[in-house]
């Protein structure tokens, strides 16, 4: 029975991916992409990766979808010009050949995978007790491959710096995004008042439970960022000017703590980001609690966009 479900899911996902290719309107293609992301969440559940499913739902289809929908709405005027540039038959044939070769190579690789599959699950299980967390993915992210997570947090910060660097000179250091005027008695303002308290609890809960059950700081931070963005969109809060000191301190706080723990590990435990015996769980908690607000603010500001208004 699950075989039929998997086959159906795979077919619908392929159909949606084709839709994003052949849809005439860019907005329709983006909406198809958001639905495709949500169905991919189901694929992750079928592949038993619940943490990845949460991240895909939150970041892959949630935040990316919001980003793309806003861009598609702003770029509506370029539709006709783009349609005039449609490629000829030769380009399509070359593209089809390239796509076919890539698909064939990957399919051969999938069918030729070694059996029994090599796996690191037993080693992770053996060393899990030393980290003090119950969720193996959290243990891998913050104990065995903590370097990757640290660099990932810094990469997200770099993306934000890249977004800010695109501000025009007149709005340098100003508030991101246009001023949102929503009816204070309207439904959007109501939603922005009713949902954020619930979202706050859900976001912190998902972050907190990530130590032992599927969850974690990326998923929780995304929910917190989304709640703040909802308040900004409804006009209940305004995006702060990006030159504010407290904002910049909040952004770098998480990565700085992470690097500090790493350097302390080099001093006391012999290697960068090594945890001394018995201190693994508290150090992981410190890093997570420092990273959560930084990540939430970073993700929200990436969505808020380029500074457009001078700070007044």
């Amino acid at each position, binding site marked *: 029975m699950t075989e039929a479900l998997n086959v159906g899911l795979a077919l619908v*996902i392929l159909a949606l*991916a084709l839709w994003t290719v052949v849809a005439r309107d860019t907005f329709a293609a983006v909406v198809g992409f958001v639905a495709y992301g949500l169905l991919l969440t189901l694929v992750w559940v079928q592949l038993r990766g619940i943490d990845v499913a949460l991240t895909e739902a939150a970041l892959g289809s949630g935040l990316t979808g919001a980003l793309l929908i806003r861009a598609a709405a702003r770029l509506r005027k370029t539709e006709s010009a783009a349609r005039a*540039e449609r490629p000829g038959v030769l380009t399509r044939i070359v593209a*089809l050949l390239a796509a076919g070769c890539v698909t064939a190579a990957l399919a051969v690789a999938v069918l030729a995978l070694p059996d029994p599959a090599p796996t690191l699950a037993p080693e*992770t299980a053996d060393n899990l007790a030393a980290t003090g967390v119950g969720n193996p993915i959290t243990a891998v992210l913050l104990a065995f491959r903590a370097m990757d997570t640290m660099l990932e947090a810094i990469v997200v910060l770099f993306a934000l710096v890249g977004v800010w660097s695109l501000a025009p000179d007149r709005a340098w250091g100003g508030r991101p995004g246009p001023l949102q005027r929503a009816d204070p008695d309207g439904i959007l303002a109501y939603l922005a008042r009713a949902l954020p308290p619930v979202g706050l609890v859900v976001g912190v809960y998902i972050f907190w439970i990530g130590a032992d059950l599927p969850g974690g700081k990326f998923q929780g931070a995304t929910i917190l960022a989304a709640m703040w963005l909802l308040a900004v969109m409804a006009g209940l809060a305004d995006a702060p000017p990006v030159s504010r000191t407290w904002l910049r301190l909040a952004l770098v706080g998480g990565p700085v703590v992470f690097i500090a723990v790493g350097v302390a590990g080099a001093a006391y435990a012999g290697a960068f980001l090594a945890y001394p015996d018995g201190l693994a769980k508290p150090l992981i908690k410190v890093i997570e609690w420092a990273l959560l607000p930084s990540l939430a603010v970073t993700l929200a500001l990436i969505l808020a966009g380029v500074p457009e208004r001078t700070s007044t």
Partner: protein
Amino acid sequence: MTDAATLFGLCAAALVGIGVYALIVNPQPLRKIVAFNVVGNGVFVLFGAIAHRGAGAGWGGDPVPQALLITGLVVAFSATALAVTLLLRLFEEAGSATLAPDAPAPAKPDTSDG
């Protein structure tokens, strides 16, 4: 268990192919970014299928590739955000969002400083 992994692995291969085709064929940059995301998600699903095959020790999948996938998803989102912002700024400055090198100059004067 192996069948789900093989099925989704093949599906992922097809997704990457569809994304590559869309990347080359669609002239509008936002569609190219969407196609790039389709390719990226296909690669992630392929990796997830491999992680599912490595299930053991009571879990449904190998946790190390799955943790790397979470990292990959976050970095892919960051790259998409930067690409979309670049595209929007290009549209604001040049009046048209096209990658063609010999695009005609926009009709409206460029009033914003850069």
